[in-house]
């Protein structure tokens, strides 16, 4: 039922599970396969259970698959934890140096058991850490991959550590390969590779990297942030790539400072952002209001994780939605973007900076751990770096200011659109005071008189009245009339798409809708596409159905909506969505 080959390596945190997975997946991506990799990890450094799963396909995918063809277990916990996911005919490779008598459940007798003394073989090469490379070699043999597929990658990764390290890694791969090739033969086959036109591999990129790159392309040159899982990789990529272009990353003392620094930098004319996750996003609420009332552009990225409080720091969730929409006291105009793919992470981030400067308001871009931290293959032509040209909005030129009577510039002048042309500090005759207090059009002092208050609030709140990102805001696929339409926002798009295909294979009229701009909400198109749905299943990663509530508020259809919720911390499986549909009376044929 599910396409592609799925492979997973698991063990205790700190054992190098991630690097094993990364080497294996990167090598396959370079070979032209389309990869999706998901990391399962815990908020600790040593111990616990961690695993890295990769799905290999011949076309682009956004999800690591429900089940598992190959599992490499460095310990018993990995077998216990992942047993349910194994297919009936899966391959279980386990470290027989450590697991002399592994406990293997009896319910799947056709699983191929492949004991490999991974640790002993690694020690033979000189270092127990080499077991990662041994495991890659074993995997290669089991899927019929030539062992030199890893050579160039190893040279790149370890070249700086000297020839000996490179040779030892290559040797570890071959030892693993030879051992498995002699004993198990090829037990699974890889889907055909689909390399790029030049014969090379695809882009292998995460949502976080895509956001950080999109920001660089958009001209963002200042990121202030506080380290927080799962958003920190945005800082890492920026630190590695922005300085060449004059971009700086400041690790702020907390998220309050981070957000306010970004506001200060935007005020001073540099495109600036902050990135965070739930707990940090909560701390930023007052600052988001400051950007709103002072009409200062601001881009905030929220990579959602399990809440509330400290919640599930290393698990995925979409439970910040209400805060994205309504957080911060008082009324402000705001835009909330929820990209659903890695490509959209690039484009929406670039768009976010344009929107923030056009509308002079906070723009919040929300992803989640699943989209942010999972690395996947994207076709090289699927990301067009020039797709969103930079547009800095209404900034008065030095000439325009020179032609104005001295000190008559009114920063918050009431206009038809509500948007007032701004100036940048340093510009002559453009001076103004930005205020978080209520204020008038041009005076530097705060005001409290009702008439001005109403006029200025109305001015700000009408700024987004013409906002329309058109077909970027939503995506519908399916017939006009459906038995069921699956609806979600952000990262759930991939599993929803696979579930829709499964429903269609069963002969159902199934549609799918992904909303990518949740504020201002694309009311009319969403109302229209959902009109013909018999049932609406709203798929979202939270406990209270925040997106379903939004849908009811914006477009209605209360009686047709059913909540398909998941808040365990893991992304949806396709089966969970299908099971939900199955339970809906009258939906299944």
């Amino acid at each position, binding site marked *: 039922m599910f396409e592609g080959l799925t492979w997973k390596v698991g063990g205790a945190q700190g054992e190098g599970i991630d690097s094993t997975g990364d080497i294996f997946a990167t090598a396959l991506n370079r070979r032209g396969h389309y990869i999706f990799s998901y990391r399962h990890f815990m908020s600790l450094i040593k111990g616990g259970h961690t695993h890295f799963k990769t799905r290999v396909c011949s076309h682009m995918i956004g999800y690591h698959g429900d089940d598992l063809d190959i599992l490499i277990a460095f310990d018993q916990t990995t077998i216990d934890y992942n047993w349910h996911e194994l297919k009936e005919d899966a391959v279980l490779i386990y470290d027989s140096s450590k697991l002399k008598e592994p406990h293997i459940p009896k319910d799947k007798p056709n699983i191929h058991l492949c004991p490999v003394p991974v640790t002993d073989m690694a020690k033979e090469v000189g270092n127990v850490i080499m077991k990662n490379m041994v495991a890659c070699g074993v995997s290669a043999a089991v899927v019929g991959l030539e062992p030199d597929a890893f050579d160039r990658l190893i040279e790149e990764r370890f070249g700086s550590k000297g020839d000996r390290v490179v040779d030892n890694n290559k040797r570890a791969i071959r030892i693993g390969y030879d051992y498995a090739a002699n004993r198990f033969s090829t037990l699974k086959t890889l889907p055909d590779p689909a390399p790029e036109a030049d014969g090379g591999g695809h882009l292998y990129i995460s949502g976080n*990297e895509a956001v950080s790159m999109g920001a660089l392309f958009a001209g963002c040159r200042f990121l202030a942030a506080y380290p927080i899982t799962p958003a920190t990789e945005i800082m890492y990529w920026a630190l590695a790539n922005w300085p060449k272009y004059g971009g700086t990353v400041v690790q702020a003392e907390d998220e*309050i400072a981070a957000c306010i*620094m970004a506001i200060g930098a935007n005020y*001073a*004319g540099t495109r600036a952002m902050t990135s965070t996750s739930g707990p940090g996003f909560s701390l930023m609420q007052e*600052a988001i209001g400051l950007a709103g009332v002072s009409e200062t552009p601001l881009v905030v990225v929220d990579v959602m994780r399990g809440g509330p409080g400290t919640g599930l720091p290393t698990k995925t969730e979409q439970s910040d939605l209400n805060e994205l929409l309504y957080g911060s006291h008082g009324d402000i105009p705001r835009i909330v973007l929820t990209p659903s793919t890695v490509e959209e992470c690039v484009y929406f981030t670039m768009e976010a900076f344009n929107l923030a400067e056009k509308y002079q308001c906070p723009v919040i871009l929300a992803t989640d751990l699943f989209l942010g931290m999972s690395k996947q293959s994207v076709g090289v032509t699927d990301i067009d770096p020039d797709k969103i040209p930079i547009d800095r909005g209404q900034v008065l030129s030095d000439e325009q200011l020179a032609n104005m009577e001295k000190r008559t510039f009114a920063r918050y002048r009431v206009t038809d659109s509500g948007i007032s042309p701004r100036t940048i*500090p340093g510009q002559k005759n453009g001076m103004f005071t930005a205020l978080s207090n209520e204020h008038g059009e041009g*005076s530097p*002092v705060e005001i409290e008189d009702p008439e001005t208050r109403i006029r200025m609030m109305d001015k700000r709140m009408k700024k987004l009245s013409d906002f329309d990102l058109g077909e970027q805001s939503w995506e519908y696929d399916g017939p006009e009339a459906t038995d069921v339409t699956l609806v979600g926002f952000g990262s759930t798009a991939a599993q929803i798409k696979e579930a829709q295909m499964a429903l269609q294979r069963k002969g159902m009229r199934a549609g799918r809708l992904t909303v990518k701009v949740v504020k201002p909400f694309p009311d009319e198109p969403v109302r229209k596409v959902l009109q013909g749905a018999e049932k609406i299943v709203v798929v979202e990663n939270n406990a209270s159905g925040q997106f379903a509530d939004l849908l009811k508020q914006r477009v209605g259809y209360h009686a047709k909506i059913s909540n398909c919720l998941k808040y365990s911390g893991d992304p949806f499986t396709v089966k969970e969505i299908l099971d939900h549909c199955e339970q809906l009376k009258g939906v299944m044929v």
Partner: protein
Amino acid sequence: MATVKDFRVKEKPTWCPGCGDFAVLAALQKACANLGLEPEEVVLVTGIGCSGKLVQHFGSYGFHTLHGRSLPSAQGVKLANKDLTVIAAGGDGDGYGIGMGHFVHAVRRNVDMTYIVMDNHIYGLTTGQMSPTSRRGFISKTSPQGSVEEPVRAVETAIANGISFAAQAFSGDVKHMETLFEQAISHKGFALVNVFSPCVTFNKVNTYNWFRDMLINLDEENDYDPTDRQKALDTMYEKSGMVYGVLYENPRPTFEENILGASETAKAKLDIHMPTAEKNEILAGFR
């Protein structure tokens, strides 16, 4: 060249007659003019409170931000455009209460900017509650039996954390304050000027006369060496903080000179359009 008039606006302050903040406004306007600054090259960023209203009466670019958040805003401004002269200002509640976390880190970071704290030992705009600098026993609306907390030692904290310039001023001596502001603004690095700026309406204890009786002018002490860190700390402890003048100077490289991505051209003036070929090269790095 700009004169002191250019740093004035027509809107009149709403401070109580006699408020120490009038002196701060006048001294800052004079200091900027004396230094030959142009108003459009200056950004004044303030927090919330009576002190925060300083920005509403100062004729430069300004940002009246949130309570306690003048420092992160101001650092963002300076890092975005290092060619600007950036001054942050607020009160003792704003800076040493709600904003204390930012204060310590701004000191450590050493962005080239000036921070003026109008310290009146009380919350004025909310009509008289104890503040972080209120002394033990200080009676206010929220400390009816007298404050039972130790006053915060912000300047000592700043010195302990490596501040590069620390001074104290007094609203009863505007001329002196003016020279301190000039030194602070000229200093390359994070410069703190803690100004004793009495609240004439709600603080009947720490009055002009009270400060005048207590304060010692360090700039008139011949043997005081502001580069001696231990001496600065000892002096603050021995005199219970009741000194003014330049307390401590510790020139060191600024944050913006040392960070990754530092460039000759201010960030706000960079051409942010990247050639397609370079963007494609970055994309290829993911293959």
